[in-house]
């Protein structure tokens, strides 16, 4: 199974937000911790709604949390 082309900066953003835990972020956006783990590993591309909720949790626009492209996803 190939890696998803949608990448994200969730791990870095959590660290920059008072070292927010995966569980805290999961509770904030209404998913399980497993889903946050899968997102950070690049094993899952979130729905648009969840992507917006995560971006709102960090107080950032969507494109500062998520990016699209094979090149970016590999980096």
């Amino acid at each position, binding site marked *: 199974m190939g890696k998803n082309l949608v990448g994200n900066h969730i791990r870095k953003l959590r660290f920059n937000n008072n070292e927010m835990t995966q569980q805290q972020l999961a509770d904030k956006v209404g998913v399980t911790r497993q889903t946050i783990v899968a997102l950070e590993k690049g094993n*899952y591309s979130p*729905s648009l709604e969840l992507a917006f909720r995560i971006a709102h949790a960090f107080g950032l626009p969507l494109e500062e949390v998520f990016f699209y492209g094979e090149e970016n996803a590999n980096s």
Partner: protein
Amino acid sequence: MTYQEKKSIVTLFSTILIFVLYCLYMYPKYPGESADITEVFHYWGSFVLVLTLVSIVAHIIISIAFNVFFRVTTGEKEPAFEDELDKLIRLKSIRVSFAVFVIGFLLAMGSLVLDYPSKVMFMILIASGFASDVTGSLSRLYHYRRGV
């Protein structure tokens, strides 16, 4: 390993265990080749019905025991809800297990067309039900580990 992965493994092993033990229990009760056709049909009918009931009850008990064991050993609570990733994985695993069962069902019907004895049809049907359960659990485990 996460709760969902552990639960998929427990479900997989409990499915195999229940099926194997039940088959071992029912095998000596088979009426035999010389038995009346209604007796044979009664045997297979009760085999499927009792297996369904037994596996539902056993899965509930195993699930409760697993949740208690998970809480005690990890100190974590099991997820109280199903989010979008869980729903997507559930749909994918249902699709896989449904496909396996349909293949088994068609093979079972094919065995009747090819004039095999009715016991072959029942055995293929029951085996495909078991295989669909196993592939469903394996597919769930695969998607939780490797992503969707």
